[in-house]
């Protein structure tokens, strides 16, 4: 008891000492769910971190911890960062939501930014990107390109963000191809290349010739490449090493401008807790180059959709739309509000299967 309290005091003292020493530098911490070399989600967050370093040079110091499991361990890592004098901490996975809130309570002076969650606090901002806009573009290409009319979808966890993506892709695939079916497999992991590859192989064996993924590694791309006539889309990062086939386009997360702006806000003392949700228009979601494997007219159609989403003339969830059970959701011309989208827990009409609880 006594020993631990001495230790704790020492740790706090050490933290204070380092923060006092580093007062002229703003220290920014990043907590990653996968390794920085995953080629997808974490890779892009890390690019954002490097952009912060490049932008501010000596005025900033960044630290990161990779492959942090979503759970109590995340709390330990964040606490450690806060004790080491971080002024701003980005926690970059949905599963860090509660740990972030818990740690933020203990360190009211440290600013936290949680990606893709919905719990805000005095010193906790949330930020995410409207990936579903990119999914709409993917769905259009998928619906046009599939010959078997079976699109395979590798889900990670059944959380609103993933379900939103499935719905958006499905709506737009159906719009251009009324016969299209989605086969959805839940991997229950963000990052496990072997499992992701297995999931892709299973979907291909069951007839899918388009694979959409909401997991972080490039393994499904490799599986599709090995299978031959299957197309895929880069997830979170461009994954252009698999272009022009199987990867025909991609959703690219561009976090750098946001990270730079928020770091600047901390430096200026103007940081306040906000909820940011930007899409293609604001540049947070990028659409990777559509490769030559896609016919020109499909490419033009996809780009037109992208432009309409970017300038706000079209919303990816525009009625008439029904829920899976056949009940009405959006009337003709009505668009979904952000609240419903943020907590989306239902499939739209036409998707088969149940969402796991």
């Amino acid at each position: 008891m006594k020993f631990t309290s001495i230790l704790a005091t020492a740790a706090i003292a050490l933290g204070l000492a380092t923060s006092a020493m580093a007062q002229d530098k703003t220290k920014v911490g990043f907590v990653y769910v996968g390794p920085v070399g995953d080629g997808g989600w974490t890779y892009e967050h890390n690019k954002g971190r490097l952009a912060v370093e490049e932008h501010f040079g000596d005025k900033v110091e960044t630290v990161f911890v990779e492959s942090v499991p979503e759970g109590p361990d995340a709390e330990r890592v964040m606490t450690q960062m806060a004790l080491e004098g971080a002024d701003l901490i980005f926690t970059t996975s949905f599963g860090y939501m509660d740990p972030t809130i818990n740690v933020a309570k203990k360190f009211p002076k440290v600013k936290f930014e949680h990606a893709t969650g919905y719990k805000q606090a005095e010193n906790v901002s949330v930020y995410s990107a409207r990936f579903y806009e990119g999914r709409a573009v993917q769905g259009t290409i998928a619906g046009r390109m599939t010959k078997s009319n079976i699109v395979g979808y590798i889900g990670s966890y059944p959380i609103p963000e993933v379900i939103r993506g499935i719905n958006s892709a499905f709506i737009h695939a159906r719009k251009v191809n009324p016969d299209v079916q989605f086969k959805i497999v839940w991997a229950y992991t963000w990052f496990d290349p072997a499992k992701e590859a297995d999931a892709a192989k299973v979907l291909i064996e069951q007839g899918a010739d388009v694979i959409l993924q909401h997991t972080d590694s490039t393994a499904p791309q490799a599986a599709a490449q090995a299978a031959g006539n299957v197309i895929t889309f880069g997830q979170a990062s461009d994954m252009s090493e698999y272009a022009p086939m199987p990867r025909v386009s991609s959703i690219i997360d561009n976090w750098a401008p946001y990270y730079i702006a928020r770091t600047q806000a901390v430096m200026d003392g103007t940081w306040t807790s906000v909820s940011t949700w930007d899409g293609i228009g604001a540049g947070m979601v990028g659409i990777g180059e559509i490769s030559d494997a896609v016919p020109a007219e499909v490419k033009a159609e996809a780009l037109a959709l992208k432009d309409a989403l970017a300038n706000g003339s079209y919303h990816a969830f525009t009625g008439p739309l029904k829920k899976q059970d056949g009940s009405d959701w959006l009337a003709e011309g009505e668009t979904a509000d952000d609240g419903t989208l943020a907590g989306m827990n239902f499939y739209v009409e036409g998707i088969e299967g149940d969402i796991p609880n």
Partner: protein
Amino acid sequence: MDLSAINPVLLVASLMVAATPLLLAAIGELVVERAGVLNLGVEGMMIVGAISGFAIAVETGSPWLGFIGAAVGGAILSLLFVVLTQVALANQVASGLALTLFGLGLSALMGQSYVGIKPPAMGKLDLPVLSDLPVVGPILFSHDLVLYLGIALTAAVWWMLKHSRAGLILRAVGENHDAAHALGYKVIRIRVMAIMFGGACAGLGGAYISLIRVPQWTEGMTAGVGWIALALVVFASWKPWRALLGAYLFGGVTVVQLNLQAAGVAIPVEYLAMSPYIITILVLVILSADKSSAPASLGRTFHASH
């Protein structure tokens, strides 16, 4: 629900592929533990094997050289464990954990320039008549050769442990190292060889993931297979054929549950996702009712003067 979408032949063929990395790592660790050493560094040796094999296969263009490189890489990393536990007599649990952490970091460093590269393809077995047989062909006669190596290795280890003099000595060392020492056997030397064999097998298992199962290099790509292999050895009661059964069960249920999901079977996905772990443990626990116990000297440090 559409079960007809599942092709049973492809399913069995792909479950064998999914099981092989696990089997290779488990067989290696089984020999190590039979010699009385607990090496928790399997995950670390696997991932180092994965990148060593990948790098060498890419540089030389030969997947075979890649696999040899992976075995050598895993064995070299296991030498670190040897130095810690057999020479410096450090605690085996701590050393093994350190080996895993070290391996994960080292592999990330080694793999920096190999992200996004496609490795040379591994040839598959292609026997004129047999590979073309309708059902049996795809299941038994048209895999990559490393998969057969895994099965052959299981048979060889079983024979070695059960019927050869070398196996008897190895087991003696694992059961009672003092007695083995008194009989004049070189306890440390035998253990060092076992540990290196374990490292080489783990390396092969890792390379199987990076060269055949996925095939690409991504940091941390073994994602816990090494830990499952460790658990498998225990649940298999340190018996090679049971390890094979366990690996195939685990790999099998993993692939089956993905297939069932894709076919839209009305079983909650949560149950499907946990099924590989539960079924494998259940079957092996039932099998281990014959009270076979762990090697008596498992995890104990040996020093000749004690």
